[in-house]
């Protein structure tokens, strides 16, 4: 049985007002433009766009709650980790200005835990948060606002060949199903006394422990595929050029959206080549830190 993403038709939703092909193209432009920048001033407009899209999407909070809490936790975790270790920014900034150094009052085997709070690290953490969070918001909304019945024709409309478009369609449909299967398998194995969380044994023993989860889910999926293959063969899949049940037509708004996306992308690309949008720290802060 297939499980679907929580899509539903939403009235007055900005995302759903556009053609899915146009939206995917805009999304790709948005994504690659965001990746060109580390400067928080250049990243803020992207963040604002992402927030506008989020608040006009009409997706209810309870629907995306779980996904959002997870993403926020994940982004926070990595941002804090980079902040604590200073890792990640070292290729981007060379010099650090210390604001305050926190030293622990104890030592562990001669090692005193020390945290250097520097202007660069703090701003790097902020930039990273804004950057990753904008991309995450835009990505999360796609499964909630793209009609599963239109997956195939959307990918076909993006000029992919029939078979690849259909494979992409199936992939998007299978992901939630396998997620559910994985959960079921894990519950079943737990009921039989399987303990993944118990950390014992060497590396090889630990890897082997994953077998009872990965193997049943994979093999079950392959066995289940026979029914789908039969159904597709019976309908003569791949014999001639494919026709799709739904048709998509571009409206003027879709062309405008794609044009805006391409414009943002080109501007970012040119900006990146000229050297704009590199990591930036307010000079006042550096002065404040005594730099």
């Amino acid at each position, binding site marked *: 049985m297939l499980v679907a993403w929580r899509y539903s038709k939403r009235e007055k939703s900005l995302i759903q007002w556009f053609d899915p092909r146009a939206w995917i193209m805009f999304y790709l432009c948005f994504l690659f433009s965001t990746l060109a920048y580390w400067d928080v001033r250049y990243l803020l407009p992207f963040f604002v766009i992402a927030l506008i899209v989020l608040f006009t999407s009409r997706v209810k909070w309870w629907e995306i709650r779980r996904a959002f809490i997870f993403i926020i936790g*994940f982004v926070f975790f990595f941002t804090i980790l980079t902040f604590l270790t200073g890792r990640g920014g070292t290729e981007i900034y060379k010099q650090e200005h210390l604001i305050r150094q926190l030293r622990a009052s104890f030592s562990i085997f001669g090692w005193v835990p020390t945290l250097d709070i520097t202007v660069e690290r703090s701003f790097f953490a902020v930039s990273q948060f804004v950057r990753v969070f904008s991309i995450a918001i835009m990505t999360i909304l796609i499964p909630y606002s793209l009609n599963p019945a239109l997956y195939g024709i959307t990918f076909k409309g993006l000029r992919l060949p029939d*078979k690849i478009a259909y494979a992409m369609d199936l*992939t998007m*449909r*299978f992901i939630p199903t396998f997620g559910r299967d994985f959960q079921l398998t894990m519950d079943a194995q737990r009921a039989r006394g399987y303990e993944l969380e118990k*950390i014992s044994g060497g590396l090889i023993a630990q890897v082997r422990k994953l077998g009872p989860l990965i193997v049943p889910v994979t093999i079950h999926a392959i066995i289940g595929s026979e029914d789908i293959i039969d159904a597709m063969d019976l309908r003569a899949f791949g014999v001639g050029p494919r026709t799709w049940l739904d048709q998509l037509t571009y409206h003027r708004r879709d062309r405008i959206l794609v044009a805006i996306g391409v414009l943002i992308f080109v501007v970012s690309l040119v900006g990146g080549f000229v*050297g704009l949008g590199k990591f930036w720290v307010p000079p006042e802060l550096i002065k404040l830190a005594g730099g």
Partner: protein
Amino acid sequence: MDKKLTNVLVSLAVILVIFAVVMFALGTTKSLGPFNFSVDQATLVMRFVFVIIGLLIAFAVYYFTRENAAWEVGTREVVWMAIGAALYAVFSWLFNGTVFVVPSLSQVSLRPAIAIPMFFGYAFGPVVGFFSGAVGNMFGDALTGFGLSPQWSIGNGLIGFIAGMALLFKDKKKSMDTVLWVSGVLAVLTVLLFFFNRDVQNGFYFAASEPVSIFAGLTIVIGFVLVLVVRFAFASNENIAAAVTWGMLGNIVGILFASLSDIFINGFSLAAAVVGEFLPAAGPNLIFAAILVPLLVGAYAAVQRQSGR
């Protein structure tokens, strides 16, 4: 000349032209915005010859095996591609530290999901393997909230693709030995580079700003030894041995491709790309391949016996 052959030739020519433009025109400049295309001018022609040789090899592989059933894409392959990609995406998402944090040892990232593209490539052919790796990685990253990184998707695709090339060779034993030699040489070369560049930092996000640990640097050797053990322990079961050895080559070439492309994309040095990115990613992958791929191949063989397909 048939249409398919012309298509392949045209796409290879386009790739060559892109390389020529990048190397001869952009290679003279130091850096271009976020990209760094600079090519050492003294060895420029030499490097270009290597690009040509690489493309010729790709063409030769296609030309001499084009009648082979491994390249066919029918209904079964379309469904398997989708299943492989979806499984890879779901497993990557689950094991990227979301639902489970697989304990990671001494700055080594553990990605058990890597067994999926290897297994799908080996069992269902290079095209299915490529799609599972590339598209699965794309969706997996999107689910985790990482965004996209095309070069890593292609690298993951290559893992499945090369694992599937096992189907192109009639003499499995002989091809396996060649694969073992090639992978062994590549593993030794990268480890040598590690010992000459001990101060390179681990390039992954979650590792602290420390140089790559000895353990992380040597996991590729541990993985290689494990694969050797599997290869000879299952000498009677050719399927398991071949799946693991070809999966290993795929893993080495695919991850090497992705890390080396960071030289152009992020302006890394050769040592930073190989020691900082390749070793901490490819080494642990090999350990997973050596243990999980045999389990999958064995289970699938049982299914085939039962269903008779």
